[in-house]
């Protein structure tokens, strides 16, 4: 097995959303380097790409983790699907490995229920990373309210955690020595 210490294995997880994107940078399985949210308005895709490029320049991740918006059953808005493809192309151009994880995979690996809710996932993540995330956990959404923007961070964190559970071994086994 060609594994390097996980601490040096940096991933950037991106959760695209209507108002921009949430992101998490992790080294290894437990170390959160940075997390947050970038807002995009006007031409959202152009702005999101520009902001994402800055993150890629700064953190130089080994792997970019994205949601698989083309997966069966995914109902993401066409703009998000286009942006997802653009982000994927951009990462491949920079020779960064891209890992796509479907929403179903996220739910079944994180909470053991493919029909679980985002709130359940967020609560689970907040309990796993209490120092970083507990204070940012949004209150349970009322039916008549729109989703809290902080949920983007939890979506990105879910992608990062599932990547670490599911895929980090296979990625480090097929090291490309970038």
């Amino acid at each position, binding site marked *: 097995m060609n594994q390097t210490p996980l601490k040096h294995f940096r991933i950037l997880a991106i959760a695209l959303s209507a108002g921009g994107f949430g992101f998490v940078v992790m080294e290894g399985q437990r170390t959160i*380097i940075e997390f947050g949210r970038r807002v995009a308005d006007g031409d959202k895709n152009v702005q999101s790409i520009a902001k994402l490029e800055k993150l890629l320049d700064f953190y130089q991740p080994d792997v970019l983790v994205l949601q698989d918006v083309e997966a069966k059953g995914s109902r993401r808005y066409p703009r998000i699907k286009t942006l997802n493809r653009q982000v994927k192309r951009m990462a491949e151009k920079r020779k960064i490995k891209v890992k796509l994880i479907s929403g179903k995979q996220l739910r079944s690996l994180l909470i053991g229920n493919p029909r679980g809710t985002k709130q359940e996932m967020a609560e689970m993540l907040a309990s796993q990373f209490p120092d*970083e995330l507990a*204070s940012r956990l949004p209150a349970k959404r009322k039916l008549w309210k729109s989703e809290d923007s902080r949920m983007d961070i939890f979506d990105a964190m879910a992608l990062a955690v599932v990547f670490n559970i599911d895929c980090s071994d296979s990625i480090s086994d097929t090291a490309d020595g970038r």
Partner: protein
Amino acid sequence: MSSPQLTNYLRTNRNRLALWQEETAFLLGFKGEDKGGKVCRDEKFTREPSLRSALAYEAIYGRSVRELFAGLYQQIEQEVAERAKLLTYRKAGNQNPKRHQALASLVSRVLHNPSQI
């Protein structure tokens, strides 16, 4: 697969302690209106902090300077090893075996096994 460490982990540690840049700047003893900006520039690697500030960061975050500036340390460690290699080739009046051993271990330790913090 392994990526080089980030030049510094100041931001990560500040977030860990839930401190604001302004607060960190105050603790570091920075003065002036833009004191938070100085912390920001340290974190974004656009400014290299002085030795006093580096040690103050260690005191604030409770992590060694070597850990806080991991990427920078790695880079400097490599440079030192390169220089040590040159020094081993040089004919010196000083033939002390301790010196020879120190240089050899520095070269082998650092060039073949850069620090893993």
